[in-house]
């Protein structure tokens, strides 16, 4: 059900997400404590290649990681398998990616 490649993809994305979460939280706390409001934050993120790639990569990692994780849970508890399971995994991954990218563009674009 979970082969070496999906396993590897999930571990590598986890490896990526761990520092991303820490950076995200740290910057958020820093920005809010510094008294920045939403407009000021947007002013700094919009057009920033750095924040665009940071959150873009974050969203890609989350989509892959979550889709594979859900695949395991759905297989074990809802007994879905075969093509239906593959389809569900891809669907979840793509939807997360689209929603995430929409948010990234809203903040950076």
């Amino acid at each position, binding site marked *: *059900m*979970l*082969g*070496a*490649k*999906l*396993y*590897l993809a999930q*571990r590598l994305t986890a490896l990526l997400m761990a520092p991303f979460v820490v950076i995200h939280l740290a910057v958020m706390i820093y920005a809010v404590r510094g008294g920045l409001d939403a407009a000021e934050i947007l002013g700094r993120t919009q057009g920033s290649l750095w924040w665009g790639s940071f959150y873009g990569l974050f969203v890609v990692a989350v989509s892959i990681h979550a889709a594979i994780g859900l695949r*395991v849970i759905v*297989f*074990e*508890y809802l007994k879905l398998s075969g093509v239906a399971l593959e389809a569900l995994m891809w669907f979840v991954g793509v939807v997360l990616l689209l929603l995430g990218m929409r948010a990234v563009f809203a903040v950076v674009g």
Partner: protein
Amino acid sequence: MTDSANSSNDTPSTRPMMEVTVFRGDDSAGSYQRFDVPREDNQTILDVVTWIQRHADPSLTYRFACRVGMCGSCAMMVNGKPRWTCRTHVKRVLIGNRIEIAPLRNLPVIKDLATDMTEFFEKWDRAEGKFHPTLTRNDDIVPVNPESAERQAASAGIECINCGVCYAACDTVEKNPAYLGPAALNRAWTLINDERDGGREVRLKAVSGDGGCHNCHSQQGCLSYCPNELNPTLSIAGLKRTTAVAALKGEI
């Protein structure tokens, strides 16, 4: 176990008794039957089952061979936990004055306490749990250094008696019928670390499929119950690491 070993001088009515419920039936239909079994100072679960068959119901079906923890054929669920019954003492597992004995979990039941272990053994094969020789009998014996890290890793896992206790304890086996299970994967890991073996690549592929090592959730049910105190979880972690590196290098 002889009759004399299991009886005391007390008359049956004064001997302390315990309440034993035993699964009777097979996968299609079954229920628990109650027996009152005399308690002894030194008594294993296998003694209890044998007493029932000899004194209460000769039609009770169960499996054992060595009675000394060598053959791995006597495993059953005792009060809901998988155990080797020939070396499980009643006084260690008694709850109140009761014991519930059932066939090993995650395996088809043939009858009563005897399970069909075909699938369990076939998975050893599927995990390439067999030795791939690289030499013939005409070659010289190659010395193996017992201190090497590989040999130590292999030696840590070789005392498996194929009892199926870990297989019964594993929730992933329950949820994913294709999962090769802790015993087969532990065996595969010992062979990966056997420098005389030549089957590394086929084995890494075999443990990376749909039922492979990557499905293990590392919750250590196997480790908690293995009567020989082996650590299949650690072996499987080794397989995950090795296959991940091999996949990154494009070897599998």
